């Protein structure tokens, strides 16, 4: 019987192995960058990558603030995965195919926490029926507890990787600089990102 590609490749690798070298320890805290006020830093970085952060006390405050945004009110197709935030025009439960979300103008979704060093927010697919909602709406609102970790090491320290088919960090709206290095916000994903950091959820 001829060897499979898998066997051949693994055998080739085994025959070529360098001497073993140690894997460095990576503590979740200690030697890494921290900030005097991680929340302030998070807002600054998010702002620098094109997003906006509003700190609010409660979900109903987030709701009120959202209703004061012109683009939200003028958006035709609005959806919300966060109970009590936003006045959606389409019920997400009525959608059976992610392709039907193509025309969503504005979506309100859950986030878990923010990262001060890079303005990223951790999101997971268990909070929304279709993961495409993080990418397909014209504009995006993320509602999260006002919890900010200092850096990525701390971030990975508090999440379990592998329990969601999709999870990720989102830092700002989608962007590109592929034409002469000119930054354009709104490449394929959201054209804007507003983050409501809610104290009551923290």
């Amino acid at each position: 019987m001829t060897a499979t590609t898998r066997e051949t490749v693994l055998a080739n690798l085994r025959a070529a192995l360098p001497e073993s070298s140690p894997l460095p320890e990576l503590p979740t805290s200690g030697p890494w960058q921290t900030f005097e006020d991680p929340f302030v830093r998070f807002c600054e970085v998010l702002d620098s990558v094109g997003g906006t952060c509003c700190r609010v006390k409660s979900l109903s405050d987030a709701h009120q603030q959202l209703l004061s945004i012109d683009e939200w009110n003028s958006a035709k197709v609005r959806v919300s995965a966060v109970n009590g935030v936003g006045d959606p025009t389409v019920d997400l439960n009525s959608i059976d195919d992610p392709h039907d979300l193509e025309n969503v103008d504005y979506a309100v979704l859950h986030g878990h926490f923010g990262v001060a060093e890079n303005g990223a927010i951790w999101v997971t697919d268990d909070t929304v029926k279709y993961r495409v909602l993080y990418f397909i709406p014209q504009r995006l609102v993320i509602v999260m507890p006002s919890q900010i970790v200092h850096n990525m090491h701390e971030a990975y320290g508090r999440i379990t990787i592998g329990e969601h088919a999709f999870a990720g960090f989102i830092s700002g709206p989608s962007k590109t600089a592929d034409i002469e290095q000119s930054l354009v916000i709104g490449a394929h994903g959201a054209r804007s990102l507003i983050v409501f950091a809610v104290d009551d959820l923290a």
Partner: protein
Amino acid sequence: MSHPTLAQDFVDNKPRAQWHDKALWFVREKRDRMAASVPEWEDLRSHASAIKMHTMSQLPTYLEMFEAKAKALGVHVHWAADGDEHNRIIHDILQKHNAKKVVKSKSMLTEECHLNPFLEKNGYEVVDTDLGERIVQLREETPSHIVLPAIHIKKEEVGECFHKHLGTEKGASDPKYLTEAARGHLRERFCSADAGITGVNFAIAETGGFVVCTNEGNADLGVSLPKLHIACMGLEKVIPRASDLAVFLRLLARSATGQPITTYSSHFHGPREGSELHIILVDNGRSGILAKPEFRRSLGCIRCGACMNTCPVYRRSGGHSYESTVPGPIGSILTPLRTPEQHSTLPFACTLCGSCTDVCPVKIDLHHQLLAMRGFLDRKKLLGMSKKMSMKFLSGLLSSTWMFTTAGSAARTALRWMPRFAIYNPLNGWGKQRELPEPPKKSFREQYADNNKNSGRPS
């Protein structure tokens, strides 16, 4: 063709070469600012390097671990020895799903395997969804940079291309307007695609998942709608632990474009409900590189492109002059390792300035490898006659004090008196686009002796 030949046109167009140089230097400066803002930057680089070295030393173990974990999550894992096998596997998967329209996010591996022409030949529609890649695809070119595929193209040319293919206004060159047009055009493709293909930035052995980083969101849109996701990865993309991602995600975007992190860092573990996820592990010469001690560290490359942005030769000769998927310093190692005959001139384009080594986030000893690569090519008898002869000649000249002194003195006189055509002729390849410096009247030794005499010190 040789690097100097391929670079000729680019170098001849001086204003354009300068514009290209500046555009990349701008990115390099952004990278510097980002690196300086992280106090433990150098520690991160050391950690990244150590993690990669460790992984290489146990690569088969980690790959098997990754495979087992991925399978447990319901992923179909395939192995490909080379580009052809990789392409055939994709063809089979697409056929099984009766998928005809494919959207693909940036993956240097699929470029390396020439997947697009293969699929097109077999009747599939393949759309590159990264804006830069879409531009080069419409222009029927290849990317000239691994992170900034269209860095060599001017906005007016993008405008022309979009006018022809996407029906934008004639003469329009505003990046915002053009990006908006591409957004509309590609949305249609996303929504009608039967399959999404992505690359892999990092594959996690302990969890069986992988991470894809983009700014545009194209990878995510491409795989969140169709019922089929195929992820293609080189064997070297595997890392041991999820916590290692902290190190790499902190380094990657900062090194690549000077951003704190890419907009989307997506972690995929198993298929979406009701869909299939396939991962293809591709060797295509990687096990051969692992077997070469002086070059194996090049497998640690995370494809950030920082070495290209900083390289004085890349910036001034353009990515296409390397005629390879990965250009620049790292490409001048990886590509000749795979195809030494076609790419024997690449490491000689290098000035050995070492700037690439300084910025590499995983601390690959790039300029040392570039020097070693010259020896590697010599041992393969791939150096041209002119290089061989001039090396022989110089080695004789430099190993004899008398010859060196005499030749120096002769050259100083000759350069002053010889007519221009005697110096700048086809025999002097070096003088093609450069002026020789004005020869000094005295050699360094003579000047040194004079100085000492004047200051009263013994010579």
